[in-house]
């Protein structure tokens, strides 16, 4: 991949078991690291394994998690969706604006509108053959502008305890509602990706779009659905976040697209597309969440150091992956 000389290496080389080990590590590395981090943290920090702390970690990652499910589909198909962070902002504002009218509308409208925008992204990418990076970059700018304009650049409070608040603050079977939703999203996403023909087509497109097209697979439709899903999930995450915070903030989700991409990449999904797992992405989200939690626990590190650690962590993971995938070949 790096120089083009790799193509000539191919045959011969390391024995099969080593290859398999490297592949497994690359694909499942995030889960291995996750288990290690949890084990070490449990020993080092007394209150890491408390119910309260674990709940915090999971809840912290829940909203990002919804986005990551959609992002995983998009990235495996060889694309990228930079507009999700802005959609979280727009979703929250739409929810805050409509909740006074009717609370079910506040839950349905954000995913609907953001899904429609995602549909538009998908059409431009699949039909008009524009680069996903550019289309969704325009989305990032435009949708954030729209959210700010709709909200007059100020957060909109959601007064009263309408049933809407429950979707951010309530509990089902002892777990927070947003966590409940993100579990469903990952379960459904994982099943669709691994067990349905739609999932196989996503992989095929990411592997080689040209081949997928020549095989007669519905490439355009599949891509449009992926971006629509990504948008709808981001809008829904925005609505849930607004319910959680009792306010729609037009700046909510700022730079979340970067966190989502990090989580997906850390989870072992290749940015080049064609390979990846939903469980890896879940591990990626949890890892980022735990990392933040640990930094908070240490207390001595400010939010600045947190950024440095996140950036450093991302690089370490990617370098290790690059090393492993080179070995693999």
């Amino acid at each position, binding site marked *: *991949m*790096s*120089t*083009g*000389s790799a*193509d000539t290496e191919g045959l011969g080389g390391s024995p099969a078991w080593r290859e398999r080990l490297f592949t497994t590590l690359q694909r499942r590395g995030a889960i291995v690291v996750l288990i290690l981090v949890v084990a070490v943290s449990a020993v080092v920090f007394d209150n890491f394994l408390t119910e309260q702390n674990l709940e915090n970690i999971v809840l912290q990652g829940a909203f990002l998690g919804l986005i990551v499910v959609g992002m995983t589909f998009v990235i495996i198909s060889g694309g*990228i969706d930079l507009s999700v962070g802005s959609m979280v902002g727009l979703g929250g504002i739409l929810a805050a604006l409509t909740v006074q009218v009717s609370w079910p509308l506040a839950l349905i409208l954000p995913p609907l509108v953001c899904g429609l925008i995602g549909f538009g992204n998908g059409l*431009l990418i699949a039909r*008009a*053959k*524009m*680069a996903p*990076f*550019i*289309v969704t*970059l*325009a*989305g*990032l*700018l*435009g*949708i*954030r*502008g*729209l959210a*700010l*304009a709709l909200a007059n*650049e100020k957060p909109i409070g959601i007064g009263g305890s309408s049933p809407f608040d429950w979707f951010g603050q309530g509990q089902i079977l002892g777990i927070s509602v947003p966590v409940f939703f993100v579990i469903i999203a990952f379960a459904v996403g994982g099943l669709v990706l691994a067990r349905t023909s739609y999932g196989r087509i996503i992989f095929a497109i990411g592997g080689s779009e040209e081949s997928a097209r020549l095989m007669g697979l519905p490439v355009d439709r599949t891509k449009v659905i992926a971006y629509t899903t990504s948008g709808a999930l981001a809008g829904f995450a925005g609505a849930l976040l607004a319910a959680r915070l009792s306010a729609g903030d037009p700046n909510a989700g700022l730079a979340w697209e*970067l966190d989502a*991409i*990090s989580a997906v*990449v850390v989870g072992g999904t290749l*940015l*080049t597309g064609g390979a990846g797992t939903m469980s890896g992405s879940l591990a990626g989200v949890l890892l980022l969440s735990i990392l933040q939690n640990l930094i908070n626990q240490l207390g001595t590190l*400010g*939010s*600045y*150091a*947190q*950024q*440095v*650690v*996140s*950036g*450093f962590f*991302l*690089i370490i993971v*990617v*370098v290790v992956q*690059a*090393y492993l995938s*080179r070995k693999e070949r």
Partner: protein
Amino acid sequence: MDSGARPNKSLDASTVTSWVRGRGVYVAFVVLVIFNLIVTPNFASVVTLSTLLITVSPIVLVSLGVALTIGTEGIDLSVGSVMALASAFLPLYLGYGWPVGLSVALLVGVLAGLVNGSLVAFVGVQPIIATLAMLVGGRGLAQIFAGGQSLPVTDPVILWLGQGRLFGLPAPVIVAAVAVLVVGFLVRRTTFGRYVVAIGGNRSASYLSGHPVRRTLLAVYVISGLLAALAGVVATARLGASDPSNIGLLIELSAITAVVVGGTPLSGGRVKVVGTVMGALLIQLISNTFIANDLPFTWAQVLTAAIILVAVYLQKGRGVV
């Protein structure tokens, strides 16, 4: 692409279309200027022009570096954070005199570029990820080194870079203009420029032709880091203080927009220096137009997004020329 045997009228139409396609950014700029001349009060004044040029200077500086990385089919998302790093380091060493302070600030940019470039060229990390990590981590580092606060810059030479004038021209504009000339020369007149375009066009072919692919990639990211650091110095000088929390925030988006609207394809293989400058001017003029007419600024973002889509859609059909 079309065969010549066509009726005259349709030939004209297609000539016009392709002319507009190639120069969309210029057309949009002229339209916006005319709009401003009619609508915006006091638009045709020296103050308005110099404000536009001064505010666009940092964007031009970082856009040039980003254009080079995009030319190699890469990208540099870290420019905003590198600006913050340079801004944070500038006041720390100004006590030893302005040459030391300035060199340290620029050196920080070179170092950041070296890290990005090494990851891309030698480790094989995708540019978007390598520079994303620098985007996230760089600003955090900047804030740590600055102690989370804004430090004043009082050195007259440094301040001149942001606020001074030479022959009536604002200093930031001169700095940006020099950078444009240098990068333009690099791209058009040097082997390095040819390598950049060749790598972006087809990296394997470039490698097999014996081009120094890795060294060129490294150099491209180092140049981008250096230009971003320079932009950080200029922005800091203009403020009269370092501001690692805000300097260069989200400027990578403006830079990518400027580059793409200016006609450099994201798929690499071409670098449009003048187009990039025009792209930067265009997006700055859009926000200035909104501000000058008291329009809600957020709609400027929406309009910018629309312009990106139209510009890229128009360029799409042109393929490799």
